[in-house]
């Protein structure tokens, strides 16, 4: 039997069939008819089944007993959890309880988790989008009126100029490269801006190797050139935007020479890139965490939107602004309102009208106002302001910056319940651990980075006593006194259809095959692959050009910490690594933490390729294997964040609006370990 499922790794939304024999998943079959992947899968997708039967899978509810764990029944687990969370709600009030939903869970599960949190009176609901694309949610909603990729993945093939900034998509969203190659075959120019010569940079015609944290300067510099040389699309600006005059003034000082000084990119390359982007008949911008994970993350995103707007590179085939999302359902988790500042459908949490609307729908009084974000919850836990937390399918102890601080904070909680498929570093800190289901063991819809909502079917039963996240959330909500009577995911989706306008027509029956692209307001609507074709969902249908100014990263190299550490991902691992580090064919290909260091810097420190080195920052210390390379410039080092050590070093400095930590720029020092 072949069961169609959505890949559990990145946000590209590839589907594949799980072949099932005698109730066991035995293999993968590709799906050549899939619109984004055409059947291709990256190394992680090919290895996905390896985690299903992994011996580390959590099979029973557990409670902490001394230094170890005791198996308990579901009944006891739910009672303990209800007592832990319910007790904190009663004693300290709902503002002292935090909920982290999961961008690996389905739309239906995310909807229920945020509904549970809010119905219990807590505003503190968030998901790990905070750590990857919260600046996109804030920045794109403000400038373009919608947060999401504006054009489909396959439409990249129609682009004549592809500007990739802060994204190593060749390794992290591998299937996108086929569309970029296709565009190149039709003559497209590819520009890549990255502090590292990544695999993505191999595709570039123009490679801009900028200093980490100088993206705003580069983008303003490009806008400067485009305006000065009269390459703007005046008609588009006049018809569809507001605020252009402010931008003209704000980029006046960003001459190529000055920007070259800030970014380290030759002035000529900045001019070439700016011209290529502006004059091409269809240009697209692809970006990812290299843009967002900065203390200027929101400004970076707005600078990107500005560039697209002044050149009129939106709303047509081959154009667009494309934030590439990292988790298979991080787009969906945001759409479903598992965010501190948004209810489902991006209705603002601080708008009393939103609370009124959902109060009517859910039959409870709801709090008005923005809650604490994922990173703020950790801070609040450290200060004793958050007393209990529910964390589903997230591993902040590994994925948040400054790991030891995060762990200490979570340990201070009176009660922590973690729902996951493995005993993650976060689960190790919990009082109760609930065994959940992997993607193939449950059904539901996932929304990919191109806003494509796809249904993933259940192939096999979860191991042992593990249950689907949907069942667990319903049982937990009911034991906390709510009425969550949802027999299956489809029944939740039909409630979402009523409450989230973008998902109005995305009903279960229409989701077989390659799904539907939101906004899809009614059951007859075909979906909207390209956004902003007829203006923007903002005042007067005009997009907002929001001028931004470059400001340096929160941390700079110093005498004591002379290197700038930037973090990222490698092809065979995924995020905090709880799945890929347990996958034999992936971990054997990249088995330990490494640090890329420029060969000239290494020589000065008497470090040879393969040496074990210790890296320390103001937050902590870790060890890694040195890789001497020319991929990074002198003074910059790179570490992947799939292994626990990396985030011991990263800074807690955050973007003031989106609250995303600046994972991409931390000062550190390095020495040989012997």
């Amino acid at each position, binding site marked *: 039997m072949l069961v169609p499922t959505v890949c559990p790794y990145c946000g590209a939304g590839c589907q594949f069939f799980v072949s099932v024999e005698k109730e066991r998943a035995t293999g993968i079959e590709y799906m050549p008819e899939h619109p984004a992947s055409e*059947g291709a899968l990256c*190394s992680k997708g090919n*290895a996905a089944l390896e985690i299903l039967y992994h011996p580390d899978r959590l099979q029973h509810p557990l409670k902490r007993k001394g230094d170890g764990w005791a198996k308990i029944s579901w009944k006891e687990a739910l009672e303990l959890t209800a007592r832990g969370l319910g007790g904190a709600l009663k004693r300290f009030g709902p503002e002292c309880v935090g909920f982290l939903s999961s961008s690996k869970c389905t739309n239906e599960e995310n909807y229920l988790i945020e509904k549970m949190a809010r119905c219990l009176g807590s505003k503190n609901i968030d998901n790990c989008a905070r750590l990857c694309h919260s600046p996109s949610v804030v920045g794109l909603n403000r400038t373009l009126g919608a947060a999401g990729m504006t054009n489909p993945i396959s439409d990249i093939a129609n682009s004549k100029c592809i500007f990739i900034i802060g994204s190593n998509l*060749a390794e992290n969203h591998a299937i996108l*490269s086929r569309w970029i190659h296709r565009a190149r075959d039709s003559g497209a120019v590819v520009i890549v801006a990255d502090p590292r*010569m990544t695999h993505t940079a191999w595709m570039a015609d123009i490679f801009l190797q900028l200093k980490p944290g100088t993206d705003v300067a580069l983008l303003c510099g490009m806008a400067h050139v485009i305006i000065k040389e009269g390459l703007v699309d005046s008609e588009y600006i006049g018809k569809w935007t507001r605020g252009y005059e402010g931008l003209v003034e704000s980029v006046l000082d960003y001459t190529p020479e000055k920007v070259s000084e800030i970014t380290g990119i030759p002035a000529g390359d900045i001019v070439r890139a700016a011209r290529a982007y502006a004059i091409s008949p269809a240009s697209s911008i692809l970006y990812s965490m290299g843009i967002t994970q900065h203390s200027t993350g929101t400004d970076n995103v707005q600078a990107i939107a500005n560039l697209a707007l002044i050149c009129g590179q939106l709303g047509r085939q081959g154009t667009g602004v494309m934030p590439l999302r990292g988790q298979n359902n991080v787009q969906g988790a945001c759409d479903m309102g598992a965010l501190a500042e948004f209810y489902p459908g991006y209705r603002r949490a601080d708008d009393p009208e939103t609370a009124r609307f959902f109060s009517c729908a859910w039959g409870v009084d709801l709090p008005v106002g923005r809650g604490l974000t994922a990173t703020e919850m950790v801070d609040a836990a450290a200060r004793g302001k958050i007393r209990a937390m529910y964390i589903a399918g997230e591993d902040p102890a590994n994925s948040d910056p400054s790991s030891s601080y995060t762990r200490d904070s979570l340990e201070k909680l009176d009660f922590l319940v973690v729902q996951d498929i493995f005993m993650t570093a976060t689960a190790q800190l919990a009082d109760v651990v609930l065994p959940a289901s992997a993607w193939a063991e449950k059904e539901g819809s996932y929304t990919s980075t191109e806003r494509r909502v796809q249904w993933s079917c259940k192939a096999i039963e979860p191991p042992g006593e593990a249950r689907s996240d949907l069942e667990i959330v319903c049982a937990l909500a009911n034991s906390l006194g709510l009425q969550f009577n949802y027999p299956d995911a489809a029944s939740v989706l039909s409630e979402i259809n009523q409450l989230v306008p973008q998902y109005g027509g995305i009903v279960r029956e229409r989701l077989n095959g390659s799904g539907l692209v939101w906004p899809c307001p009614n059951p007859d609507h075909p979906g909207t692959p390209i956004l902003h074709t007829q203006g923007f969902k903002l005042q007067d249908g005009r997009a907002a050009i929001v001028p931004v100014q470059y400001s340096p990263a929160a941390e700079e190299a110093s005498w004591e910490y002379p290197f700038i550490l930037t973090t990222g991902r490698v092809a065979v691992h995924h995020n905090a690594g709880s799945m890929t580090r347990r996958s034999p064919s992936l971990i054997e*290909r990249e088995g330990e933490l490494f640090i890329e260091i420029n060969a000239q810097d290494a020589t000065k420190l008497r470090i040879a390729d393969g040496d074990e080195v210790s890296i320390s920052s103001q937050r902590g210390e870790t060890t890694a294997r040195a890789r001497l390379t020319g991929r990074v410039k002198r003074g910059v080092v790179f570490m992947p964040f799939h292994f626990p050590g990396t985030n011991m070093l990263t800074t807690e400095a955050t973007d003031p609006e989106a609250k995303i930590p600046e994972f991409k720029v931390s000062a550190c020092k390095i020495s040989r370990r012997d």
Partner: protein
Amino acid sequence: MPVYVDISRCIGCRSCEVACKRVHGGKGHVNVHMVGDHASVPIFCHHCEEATCTMACYTGALYKDAERTAFDVEKCTGCGLCQLACPFGVVWSDKIAHKCDLCAGRETPTCIISCPANALSTDFALASSRARARAAMAVARGR
């Protein structure tokens, strides 16, 4: 009909390695090599016309089956001569010989469908026809 690689497209994601391993019971036949900071090269069996591995194989376990260099596991003694004979290092011996069988029984080799970058194909001329198209485009645009 071996698998041809368009090196200009390979992104070093190692999907072919893992896919090959997956369908061959945990023993893959593709190796992706990172060459410096600028390229990755997957190394495949060439299915040579005059295959030295078949010449070295004294039991006839490795043999030519039309364009394919095929392998009959029943006849393999695991001697390892094929590994020594292969000039590309893509036949190796671990109890028995392991080499690319072009995914016998499947319509298309797994690595080709799985490759996210469309870098692999069974069409010898594809890489060069793509290169010609790019060259023509560059001439037309004068760069």
